[in-house]
């Protein structure tokens, strides 16, 4: 509803207005844009691009750096840097790191890039302490005639003010079927699907309308300007101390009026699209499964579901302040439609890069095991 009101207002403004071109002050310079999110427990590459000044002549074809001028150190130890896609990527240079020491809590990761005709950039971050998962409990409940699964995540200690976390959740559905040409000519088949979902809240339309952002902010893990697609990667819900009850965070796995409804209102469909988490390995496929080619197989005439199980897995991230601010700013920037018309203040792009733009922010992650969910009745 609100989206349509926005559009109507903007159309009304446009219909009655008169254009007045004016000169812009040259207030920005070309800059290197860096995106590097070192994570304890995962290896992440660096993405570097060129940010051209909006108030000047754009020169998007220039290359802002040489690979030999990129330096990454962990507690003073230098890593080897290699560019993965120098040819095919246009203004998005992906760099891999080798020889990087283990990222431990407290490790300082520093990145510097010597600019090629643009200012040099530098930034650093400290890897935060890994969160400790004390327990995860799955509780089946009925809320307003809807069956929901409450997930209670307990950490080892109460969350303090100023601490930031992220949470990602996955469900693994395993279906074992018996199928074939007949009951006497069949075999078992196991299908495993892993998908991510947004940790939901039991909320009505009225709650969602209240736009309590800390409750609903969810962004793609590596959601930056150098990621093609705003919500690439599985969604991470950002958490501050306010979302915790001491050491406990509670969310719902399949709530009816949950965050997905909220996303739908704003067309933020990333959280609704099940995707394979980038830092999670697919279960090994059984031999022959998923092979392509050959003649199309006839559909089985005999089909019986033997079991259908859900398992849940949670990843808890401890975020540095800069990651939290960056991720929240990225999320908020998707609401900048009205600010483009000067009706509201814009949401700014967070940067912690001196001399340039972008983000170098550390985080650490801990993952639970797969936890069996309530078993569904066989049909």
């Amino acid at each position, binding site marked *: 509803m609100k989206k349509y009101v926005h559009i109507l207002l903007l159309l009304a403004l446009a219909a009655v207005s008169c254009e007045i*071109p*004016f000169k812009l002050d040259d207030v920005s310079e070309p800059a290197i844009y860096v995106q590097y999110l070192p994570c304890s427990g995962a290896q992440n590459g660096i993405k570097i691009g060129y940010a051209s000044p909006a108030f000047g002549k754009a020169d998007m074809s220039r290359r802002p750096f040489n690979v030999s001028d990129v330096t990454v150190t962990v507690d003073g130890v230098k890593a080897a840097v290699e560019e993965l896609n120098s040819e095919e*990527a246009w203004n998005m240079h992906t760099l891999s790191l080798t020889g990087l020491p283990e990222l431990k809590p407290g490790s300082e990761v520093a990145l510097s890039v010597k600019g090629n005709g643009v200012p040099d950039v530098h930034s650093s971050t400290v890897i935060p302490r890994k969160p400790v998962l004390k327990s995860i409990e799955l509780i089946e409940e009925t809320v307003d005639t809807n069956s929901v699964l409450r997930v209670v995540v307990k950490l080892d200690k109460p969350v303090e003010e100023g601490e930031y976390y992220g949470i990602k959740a996955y469900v693994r559905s395993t279906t074992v079927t018996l199928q074939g040409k007949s009951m006497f000519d069949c075999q078992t088949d196991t299908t495993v699907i892993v998908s991510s979902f947004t940790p939901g809240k039991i909320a009505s339309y009225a709650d969602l*309308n209240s736009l309590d952002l800390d409750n609903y902010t969810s962004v793609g893990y590596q959601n930056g300007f150098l990621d093609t697609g705003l919500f690439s990667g599985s969604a991470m819900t950002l958490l501050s101390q306010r979302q915790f009850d001491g050491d406990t965070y509670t969310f719902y796995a399949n709530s009816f009026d949950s965050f997905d409804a909220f996303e739908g209102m704003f067309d933020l469909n990333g959280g609704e699209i099940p995707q394979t988490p980038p830092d999670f390995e697919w279960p090994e496929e059984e031999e022959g499964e998923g092979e392509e080619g050959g003649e199309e197989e006839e559909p089985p005439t005999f089909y019986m579901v033997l079991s259908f199980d859900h398992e849940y897995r949670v990843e808890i991230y401890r975020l540095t302040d800069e990651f939290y601010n960056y991720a929240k700013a990225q999320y908020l920037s998707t609401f900048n439609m009205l600010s483009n018309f000067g009706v509201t203040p814009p949401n700014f792009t967070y940067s912690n890069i001196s001399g340039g733009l972008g983000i170098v922010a550390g985080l650490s992650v801990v993952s639970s095991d797969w936890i069996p969910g309530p078993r569904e009745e066989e049909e």
Partner: protein
Amino acid sequence: MKLSRILLMLAAVLATAANASAQEYERRDTLETARVTAVKEKMRNTTQTGLMRLDGDKLRSGIAVFGTPDIIKQLQMLPGVAAGNELMSGLYVHGGDGNDNLFLLDGVPLYNITHFGGLFSSFNADVVDNLDFYKSGFPARYGGRLSSVVDVETSEGDMNEYHGHASLGLIDGRLQAEGPIIKGTTSFNVGLRRSWLDVITTPALWYANSKNGVNTNVNGAYNMTDLNGRITHKFSDRSKIAANVYWGRDKLFAGIKNTDLGALNLDVGSTWGTLATSVGWNYDFSKKLRSKLLGYYSRSGSDVGYGFEVDTSEGDVSLRMTMSDHNVCTVGDAGIKYDWDWLPNDYHHVRFGLAAAYHHYQVSRSYEQTRIIPGMDPYEDAKTTGEPYNAFEPALYLEDEIFITYNFTLNAGLRMSMFTTGKHTWWHPEPRAALKWLFTHWGCFKLSYTRMSQYSHLVSAMYIELPTNSWMPSTSGAGPMMSDQIAGGLYFTPGPFKINLEGWYKTMDNMLTYNGANAFYPPITNWETSFTSGSGKSYGLEFEGTYESPKFDFSAFYTLSWSWRQFDAYYPVPFPDHYDNRHKVNLVGTWRPMKGLSVFFNWNYHSGNRITLPTHVIAIGEHAYTDMLFQAPYNSKLPDYHRLDVGADLVTPLGKGRSLDFNISIYNVYNHLNASFAMLDHDENGEYIGMAYGLVPIIPTLSVGYRF
């Protein structure tokens, strides 16, 4: 009819009317001259800096945009004040945020002072007796807001005779009446204002619906109403009681009804308004000790929402469904003030008193849905979000105007304010001081220092006034705002001239800026998380030159100012404020060529408002994907603003104190479309340019009034 012929006829009417009223106005001129002199004397004699006193007559005359005089739009022309968005009743004083002005109507603080999204102010000029406008040097008796005080007093009704005034403008009609209830002791003064656009649009839509030939009716209307009432009773020369009421309401709605498949109704609407009531008792214990006790209750609120209803059936299938959504904002105050005024000797003028207000803030959103389908269980869902906040705000103050010598006067004061809500309590000592040095009989130097605190925050996601904007108390996440201001200047009144040169330096702490999802509905629960706190700084120089004579008044105002903000959470260094207008010039003139005729003009100029445009562009895949980076707040300036308004008041006496009044006002005479907002655009060479959009063209208006 040709334009030249219309102008000739108009000139003839003006000349005839002016000639007829010549004698009647001789007496009024004398009074006017005396009034001007008195105001000038008062200005020089007052110790405070940054004070402007305007009386009701002055406020009622002049340019009346849409035919209704607007007090706030007159204040916008003063130096040190930025007007904000065009046509709106914004008041950004000395770098303030617009929500930090204390509006007092007969001593009652008001939260919502505008109609129709800020297009008009709520103050009906017909009933205003006088107005004190402080930009700095706030006396200790005022508190609760950071940037300015607009203290409006309504007129007492005439104790002996009945008077009144009725007028009709472009969009509203006004009615004012006053007179004795008990001759000599009790009087009333009532002012009523209502827009009348819906009187046209409602029958027009009814007619259009009856002729459209389909089963769909469209309805919609807007109206605003306000009522001011005052009853004054004199017990004696020493004791007087006055009861005041202000009620203002705006209503905007639109609806669609379709009867093709049963009933389908969609109604979207909003109502918002303010109720303020007070009873004040003035009692003079002696000529040296006076007191005023005031009790008040005020409530501002809005309800924005929609309702959707379907009731349809075809064969055995039927569906009945309702859905509604409401956003309700309320802020209410109940308070008392007890002010004392004591002249212990010739060297001291002591004012002291207390104030206590109980605040109630509530914003709620409710959603309700029902669905009835035969054969299925009825479905109902309803929920209301939002919790009330209550707060208590007491304050004590003491101020002493000390006449140190004939030439030196010091106004020293202290206000102790406290605010308690939930588990949080804040209290702040707010020192105030103003010094005046009268170095000649026509010139003086003044210097002041003030500290102000503000405990209520306006929760708004947009630059424009919306009914969904709400007020909230300070919380642990959004503490009280504070300001410190030093102001000083030279003030001269040589002959018919008044020349002021004043400067100020002001800092503001704990200011809030919205940093959430852009929406019409600001957040309710944990609203602080969508706001970032920071600080502000403003400084500048104001010049005011005025010449006043019975025939001609002319004022030139110039402001050179800087206004900065710093919000570390999203930008590490200070940046200019949205309304950082470096230069502001206002030329205001009144010419009285003939008795009964006043011709007005004002020319407004200011440096363009600041806007935020992207600083960088990131592109990936050769224009397949580009994104804008907003790195620097308010990094660009809109084109400079300028506008000329002209108008005329014509009073045609009808005898026995009656007259017919005309006001012709032309807003933006030379039709200069000033930039209201801007975006990035490309020129033909592919380079980025700013593209601003102007919205407000020339607006001529005529209002006709009858005074009795």
